[in-house]
């Protein structure tokens, strides 16, 4: 297989703060340094992109020395937290902006979908917009004409095709926009999280189309998403970016695990949560201890059918009148399976200054597999998070029940919970 995209030492520096007289004087200094054949003085003091800490330089590296190759026909998922440089990478690859250093070589025609419906004009009809949007994405008029009926059928807005798109519902708008993009002929497809729009049924249609393009048509796909499940189902390979650098690159399963374990909270033996594990929060309260228990003792492995209990400690630093305490059960892809709250109706509770202990009995039977927890406490009225942690603790449910009566015969899981269902079987 030959290389489709060769990325060599790509970096991108961004300037923070406002552009005004002050930035003009540093522009002059930079210009003078470059004129004399020197290095850019500001790039030398540029810092890595860490939002939470205040740096001394107002230049940050959104991407730093990114190097990797993508083979023809590969589908690569790009993952990373917000601000890891995913979008910057796609922007550079789509030639929307230019890198600060490095070189990229691409073989084949690139179609990049950083957004659907770019260039849609509200006054024009659906028909006109198909042509305009298609041309903006690089299609020839003739090409659009031959695919026109297919595009309209895919979008499912036949009836409105001669109505200005400003009269469309937002769902119809997105359908039409994606339909054009889906019919783009290219060797390489670059997709940003455009699938996070539209209803579930349409999202499925989009994922199906992408899958078809990648697997049967052999296109090279670069796909950015926060959705681990989508990346797993679509991509053979994955790239994990952290603070603008390549953390790891390889087979999707391995990288997804890397990604999740990189951000899971490491606890001490007694379940104490170290300071600074929070992803965000106002700091008015803090989760301090989390332990998964069986019969009052810390335990991670459970037989099928056993119900785990949780022991959670929280330190409250000031009076909170409307706290919503929530513990999410999440699967290994970080997807939330259920939320548990102290109040059955999801109402808020009042927390006084001091230490709290929550003992939680999970009254559900979990299907065999591996799980973790997200801990959240937020304000009911404003919705702002007071403390939020992801991937705390590991809970494993084995395929065997303790008495071997409940036996789970399959290697793959069928859902996550085992609800009670009453069956009545009759021969008719």
């Amino acid at each position, binding site marked *: 297989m030959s290389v489709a995209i060769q990325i060599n030492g*790509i*970096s991108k520096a*961004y*300037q923070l703060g406002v*552009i005004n007289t002050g930035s*003009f004087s540093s*522009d002059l200094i930079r210009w003078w340094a470059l004129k004399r054949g020197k290095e850019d003085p500001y790039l030398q003091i540029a810092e890595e992109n860490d939002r939470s800490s205040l740096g001394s330089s107002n230049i940050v590296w959104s991407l730093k020395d990114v190097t990797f190759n993508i083979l023809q026909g590969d589908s690569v998922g790009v993952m990373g937290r917000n601000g890891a440089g995913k979008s910057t990478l796609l*922007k*550079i690859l*789509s*030639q*929307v*902006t*230019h*890198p*600060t*250093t*490095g*070189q*990229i*070589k*691409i*073989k*084949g*025609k*690139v179609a*990049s979908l*950083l*957004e659907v419906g*770019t*260039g849609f*004009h509200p*006054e*024009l009809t659906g028909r*006109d917009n198909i*042509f*305009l949007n298609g*041309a*903006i*994405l*690089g*299609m*020839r*008029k003739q090409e659009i004409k031959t695919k026109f009926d297919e595009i309209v059928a895919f979008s499912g807005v036949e009836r409105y095709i001669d109505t*200005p798109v400003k009269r469309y519902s937002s769902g119809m708008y997105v359908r039409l926009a994606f339909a054009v993009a889906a019919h783009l002929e290219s060797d390489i497809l670059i997709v940003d999280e455009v699938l996070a729009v539209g209803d579930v049924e349409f999202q499925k249609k989009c994922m199906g189309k992408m899958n078809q393009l990648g697997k049967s048509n052999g296109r090279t796909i670069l796909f950015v998403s926060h959705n681990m499940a989508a990346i797993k189902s679509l991509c053979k390979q994955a790239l994990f970016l952290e603070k603008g650098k390549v953390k790891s690159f390889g087979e999707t399963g391995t990288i997804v695990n890397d990604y999740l374990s990189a951000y899971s909270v490491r606890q001490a033996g007694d379940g104490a949560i170290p300071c600074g594990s929070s992803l965000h929060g106002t700091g008015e309260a803090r989760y301090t201890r989390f332990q998964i228990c069986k019969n009052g003792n810390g335990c991670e492995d459970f037989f099928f059918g056993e119900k785990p209990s949780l022991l959670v400690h929280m330190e409250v630093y000031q009076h909170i009148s409307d706290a919503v305490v929530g513990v999410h059960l999440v699967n290994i892809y970080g997807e939330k399976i259920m939320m548990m709250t102290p109040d059955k109706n999801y109402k808020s509770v009042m927390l006084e200054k001091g230490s709290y202990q929550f003992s939680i009995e999970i009254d559900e039977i979990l299907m065999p597999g591996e799980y973790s927890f997200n801990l959240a406490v937020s304000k009911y009225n404003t919705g702002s998070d007071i403390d939020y942690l992801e991937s705390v603790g590991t809970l494993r449910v084995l395929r065997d029940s303790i008495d071997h009566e409940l036996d789970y015969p399959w290697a793959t899981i069928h859902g996550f919970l085992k609800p009670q269902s009453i069956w009545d079987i009759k021969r008719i």
Partner: protein
Amino acid sequence: MEDPQWDVVIDAKESKGRSSFKDLWRYRDLLWLLVRRDFVSFYKQTILGPIWFLIQPIFTAAIYLFVFGNLAGLSSDGIPPPLFYISGITAWTYFSETLVKTSGVLRDNASIFGKVYFPRLIMPLSIIFSNLFRLGIQLMLIFIIMSYYLITSDLVIITPAIFLLPFVIIVIAVQSVGIGLFVSAITSKYRDLALLLGFGLQLLMFTSTVVYPLSGVGGIFKLIVAANPLSFAIELFRFSMFGKGTIPIEGLLYLCGITTTIFMLGLISFNRAEKTFVDTI
């Protein structure tokens, strides 16, 4: 350096522009669709439709006729005053509208440019052509008024110079786009110049031959007016249609020289700015 193995090479060190004629040609369909979009969206939901293209020059010409022709009594170089003013306004409108729209082209289209790559020059080109369409309609109006004078008087004559008309229009288009591209490049980071534009345009208009002929200016002012790149262009515009006035050969050479200079300056600065402007706009 072209490497035949690769279709696209993005190199941070490459500072030259990247819109080649081949690229522009490949996107020609987009160009026409954009022109069509501009035209259609201009008169959507209006009753008079494209007639609006004519109303503006007629009213402006009437006002100029009153203020500059009647009150101030400026010369019209032997050309019937209505024709003189409407031709000046038509040329000026084409120039100023193309300039204003081109100078904002990076900012106005930032949302598109920030998401999709296509040769950025397609946008300014589409502005030239959609304004050219309006110009065409306005020229028809001029020819209608002209035919009236052709039949009833001998104030206007058709000469072979009429074949110069396409050339003059190209000159005006190239000048306005050149200045516009330059302003758009400069203002992609610092917007100071954009604030100066409205004032600058007024200055340009009154120091060019829109409301008076070059022959009506004397002394030091003649030099200033003649130095305005637009002056000879408008003089030539009138000369080609009405056959009145003379264009010195030095004027013609100056016109060609200054137009090329402006255009190259605009093109080079635009090509430098367009690669990273999405970061600073």
